[in-house]
């Protein structure tokens, strides 16, 4: 596994006896220790924002304008906010696809491929069911099939890692490109809807079979399912034996092996869960938005999900707010393009700044005395 722990909270607690002891003492001390995980990322965000502001001023644009358009375009009105929520729905799921393997010490970036194949699988499965099966049954089967296909795809990466030592970051990325090629092959060939000659897609699933919006809002159910999955996976990783075993493996795989943990099965299981999340995102893209599977599935959600997961320090409970933040940034991109005459790559640059500064801030953990418990400080 990696040399330095991949920004996971749990293994540090396990390995560092000092903090464990601190956990047994009073609440204020625990709060102080844990606030490090909030303050430092926040500090990183502020610094990144500052750097970006300098960047904007260097090219003659006003950072104040930028922030105001981000607010207006992403959060300020009900319309923008719901736009943001809708955009963050796939991001939540693809971020989970990075966060779960990260907990076991793997850096997997194959969410895009799993999303595309999952969406394609859902669209393909719909074809024989339209008109014959009741919508709920069809949708559930499509979702399950999408999750199975996605899970298999990323699980394969995990398997390669365990069985052959193949670096999972590169293999998951290669599988993404291969997965997109597979989808294109079928969507333009065997499974193509011939009544739609200009945009190769699978057969439309029809309005009756589409996933609807959460009542009272403009946001589809994928958002709610994403939230639910975050909570469920948090419990899985933090409160079950499986999660505990996974985190131990993530901290030190050799020690885990020595302990007799089924490392191989854990790795494949975590990778499969990750792929299932991304596959589900693909299902929602097909069933809630497009109504069919086609090349528009490869819209980059998988890659943005990587950023979300790292920003959230791979904690499933923190993923939703971070996804909303990033979703808002992306949502406001259009307004920024139109009002500030900036290219759409601006949001990419900002994301790059945030990501780089955030990773650099990793070095600050454990350096500030203010966060350490009084017992630890007295020790020095």
């Amino acid at each position, binding site marked *: 596994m990696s040399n330095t722990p991949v920004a996971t909270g749990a293994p540090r607690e396990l390995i560092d006896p000092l903090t464990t002891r601190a956990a047994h003492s009073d609440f204020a001390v625990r709060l102080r220790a844990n606030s490090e995980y909030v303050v430092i990322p926040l500090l990183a965000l502020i610094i990144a924002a500052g750097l970006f502001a300098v960047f904007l001023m260097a090219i003659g644009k006003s950072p104040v304008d930028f922030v105001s358009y981000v607010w*207006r*375009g992403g959060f300020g*009105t*009900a*319309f*923008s*906010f*719901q*736009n943001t929520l*809708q*955009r963050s729905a796939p991001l939540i799921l693809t971020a989970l696809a990075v966060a779960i393997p990260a907990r076991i010490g793997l850096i997997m970036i194959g969410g895009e491929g799993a999303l595309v194949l999952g969406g394609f699988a859902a669209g393909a499965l719909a074809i024989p069911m339209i008109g014959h099966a009741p919508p709920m049954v069809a949708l559930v089967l499509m979702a399950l099939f999408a999750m199975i296909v996605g899970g298999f795809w990323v699980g394969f990466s995990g398997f390669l890692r365990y069985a052959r030592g193949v670096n999972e970051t590169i293999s998951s990325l290669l599988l993404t490109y291969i997965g997109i*090629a597979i989808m*294109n092959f079928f969507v*333009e*060939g065997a499974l193509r809807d*011939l009544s739609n*000659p*200009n*945009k*190769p897609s699978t057969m*439309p699933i029809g309005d009756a079979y589409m996933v609807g919006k959460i009542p*009272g*809002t*403009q946001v589809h159910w994928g958002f709610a399912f994403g939230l639910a999955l975050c909570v469920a996976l948090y419990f899985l990783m933090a409160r079950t034996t499986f999660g505990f075993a996974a985190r131990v493996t993530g901290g030190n795989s050799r020690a885990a092996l020595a302990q007799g943990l089924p490392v191989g099965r854990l790795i494949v299981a975590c990778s499969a869960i990750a792929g299932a999340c991304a596959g589900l995102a693909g299902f929602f*893209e097909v069933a809630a*938005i*497009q*109504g069919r599977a*086609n*090349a*528009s599935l490869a*819209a*980059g959600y998988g890659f943005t999900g990587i950023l979300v997961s790292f920003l959230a320090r791979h904690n499933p409970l923190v993923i939703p707010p971070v996804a909303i933040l990033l979703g808002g940034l992306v*949502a406001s991109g*259009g*307004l920024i*393009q*139109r009002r500030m005459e900036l*290219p*759409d790559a601006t949001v990419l640059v900002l994301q790059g700044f945030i990501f780089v500064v955030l990773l650099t801030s990793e070095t600050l953990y454990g350096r500030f005395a203010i966060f350490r418990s009084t017992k630890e400080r007295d020790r020095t």
Partner: protein
Amino acid sequence: MSVTEFSRRGLLKTAALGVAGATLNLGAVKRTFAAADLTVGIVYVGARDDFGWNQAHAVAIKSLKEVPGVKVVEEENVPETDAVSKSMESMINLDGAGLILATSFGYYTPFVVDLAKKYPDVQFRHAAPLWSQDKDPKNAGSYFGYLNQAHYVDGVAAGLCTKKNKIGFVAAKPIASVLSNINSVLLGARSTNPNATVQVIFTGDWSMPVREAEAANALVDAGCDVITCHVDGPKVVIETAEKRGVMSCGHNASQVPLAPKGFITGAEYKWITIYKGYASDLAEGKSLPNFLTGGYEVDFVQNTPFGAAATEPAQKAALAAIEGLKAKKPIYVGPLKDNKTGKVVIDKTYGNLDPFLDKMDYLLEGVVGSTT
């Protein structure tokens, strides 16, 4: 459902109603709006300056900006997902757009259709012949130029310029409009040179520079001495052809400066005809036509001015072909067979705008290559 959840949803709902109310009022203002001032929103799927599809629209919309009283807001690199839905809605709500131009195939279903139903006071026009009178809302519509007519003219000129009788075509995806372009090049070339053939290589996507360069090289290696294409940004194909010393025909925008020695002519859209028409209709308060398609006979397409490789006879033949197309002379005159099974796919003569041709999924006999 907890208390906090309920009140958050309630808050969203009231906020949404508030915005909706504001929009409705805005709608009333918009109708008289048309006489005074108009905001046109246009959405591109790629970069505005791609030397291709998006640039053709951008150039046309630029002329629209000079019309007094018209303001244009543009957004580029909008993918064919619900992102375009939100972009269009944002243009309507925040920029007050009264006319939305959606320029990519995949924008129509379901995004443009759903949004047109939601905002009946805003006009939506989509650059593909997809609008259906019985199914789609009245404030939506389509416009399209039959570029295959211009490709036919390309073929006419290329047929006389080629010495090896082999024309190469770099194509993105095997969809109807691309296949029609390929077939039209063949028919145009055969009208002046019965021995001409067209060889096609599919790259698989609309914009893949390395693969396009490889494909162009492979076609030249296979003996083609005229290269043309249907990809979003023909820059790489034309430049590669020029580097290899073969002739080229352009697509979507004018690539004359890229091939000073080998350029013959190119197939370009003339969106400005349509856009100016919309603007003047709106200024006069007239309702916009829902379905505007056509080719040379209504000035929706054009051919790039001839380049250095266009010989005298080629130019004459091309100009004659253009006159013929303006007079609605049909391109697809049956019976024509396909190149895979040999069965007749075009049984009789079809008018150039006949919807039968929009379903094309075959390559005609004489084209070397396959759609899958």
